[in-house]
């Protein structure tokens, strides 16, 4: 099972949204992390055949993205989706089942099964109009699974889910990742930290890092420090180091930052977490660090 993305690009008049991205994805869960505007959604849309690339190819086991066979193996949850106003959750899934080529009987069975999986069985016959954001999102996840897809692309799937639902979702994705390719994008780091076997960091239309968590963290491992300092030192540190977190305490300032070695005597080294890397890369004041560490 192989999803090959070859030099995929999307150019708009005054912006390059996705810049020659090449990836080969196999079974497992891939977390696509990036700030807004980094090109995540555009990339996902091209992988789903919903947006035509400016150049480049997407193939699954040799099947091109533009073919019907490809779509037959695909499950997609867009960042935002609507519904026909008169639809109940049940109607919605039945409708999409017919578009996904399920027979009527199979559609009914599958719909019941999935509604149960995402915890919407008791509101199956209620109109989607009456749903909360989290419920609608769960419905979206359900529809992506209707045709038991080999490729599952989820764009910000946990948006609107409460912490319980998030945990349930994470467990579901972990199970699903065992024998299919799951690509999910998020800017909630904790969603991905525990379930993605590979993390893809995206910035300015490019994948700047690809690898398992330990590998990705390495550039800043041992380089994250915390300290509690007076405001003069704080000012100095803020001006010279990439800051991950700032907090004003009574008369001192708490700082969490990235540095080659301890920037001041009060600084303590702490374990780097994905959140640090994320903020470090996507923090606008991280310019200086790009010189120090480079983008590799």
């Amino acid at each position: 099972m192989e999803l090959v993305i070859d030099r995929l690009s999307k150019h708009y008049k005054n912006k390059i949204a996705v810049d020659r991205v090449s990836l080969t994805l196999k079974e497992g869960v891939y977390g696509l992390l990036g700030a807004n505007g980094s090109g995540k959604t555009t990339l996902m849309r091209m992988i789903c055949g919903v947006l035509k690339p400016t150049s480049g190819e997407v193939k699954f086991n040799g099947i091109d993205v533009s073919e019907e066979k490809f779509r037959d193996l695909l499950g997609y949850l867009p960042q935002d989706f609507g519904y026909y106003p008169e639809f109940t959750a049940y109607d919605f899934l039945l409708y999409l089942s017919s578009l996904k080529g399920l027979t009527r009987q199979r559609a009914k069975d599958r719909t019941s099964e999935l509604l149960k999986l995402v915890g919407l069985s008791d509101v199956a016959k209620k109109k989607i109009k009456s749903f909360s954001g989290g419920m609608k999102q769960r419905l979206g996840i359900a529809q992506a699974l209707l045709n038991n897809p080999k490729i599952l692309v989820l764009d910000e799937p946990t948006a609107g889910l409460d912490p319980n639902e998030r945990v349930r979702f994470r467990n579901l994705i972990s199970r699903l990742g065992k024998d299919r390719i799951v690509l999910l994008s998020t800017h909630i780091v904790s969603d991905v930290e525990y379930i993605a076997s590979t993390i893809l960091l995206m910035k300015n239309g490019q994948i700047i890092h690809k690898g398992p968590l330990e590998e990705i963290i390495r550039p800043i491992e041992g380089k994250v420090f915390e300290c509690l300092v007076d405001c003069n030192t704080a000012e100095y540190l803020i001006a010279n180091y990439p800051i991950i977190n700032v907090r004003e305490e009574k008369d001192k300032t708490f700082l969490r930052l990235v540095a080659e070695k301890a920037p001041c005597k009060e600084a303590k080294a702490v374990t780097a977490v994905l959140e640090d890397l994320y903020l470090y890369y996507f923090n606008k004041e991280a310019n200086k660090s790009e010189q120090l560490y480079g983008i590799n």
Partner: protein
Amino acid sequence: MKYKLKKELKTVFDAPAPARKEEFINLLEYPKANRLDFFISQIGYIRKRVWILSLLLFIGTLIGLYFSGASYSFVWVVSSVLPFVSLVTISEIARSITYNMDELEMSCKYNLLEVSLIRIGILGVVNLAVFIGILLLLSGKTDLGFIRLGIYLSTPYLLNCYGSLFVINRSKSRDTVYICGSVTALVSILNSLISIRIYDIYLERNRMFWAIAFIMFAVLSLKEIVKFIKRMEDLKWNSSLTA
């Protein structure tokens, strides 16, 4: 005691857990629905209002014909109502976009393009059938030739098609329906303003005007429909460049 016995019987036949269940179920190939099944199911999803309106119009024409006969005014009335059929039809065709289902539908096996083509096909046939039906009903009952009658009846309809499609092709909001509704109302009003001097309008010497208008709106509508169909292939809006 009997009750408890039945409860026990539930577990008496329990067997050691099956080992290969998940794998089997995941790999199980279900029979797939073919294109014909899909086509038929899509017909079911076309809202009743389309059928009802078409039927009402047809019956209305019959009744009107019976009571008032086929005068020029009657022709004008029918031509003012047809745009509403166009409105309902085009709203139906554009439903996926209006209700933001387009992205989802594009990613399915039988995608948005197919859904749209089926809708256009079926509704086109229905519209045509209604139109021809009405035309046949009215022809021979006025002194207007078949062709002239056809042109007078269809031109406001085509104008509306063009106007509605124009709006739909250039916006994505929910309000598109209301905008098209306004276009339709406008067309109807326009039609009635022009037709204040009914007998002049349908005069022989204004034939050219009608013929040109007809061809113009027909061609423009066709262009817009083609544009619409192309748009169903993939997302062309870059309104959401974020992320």
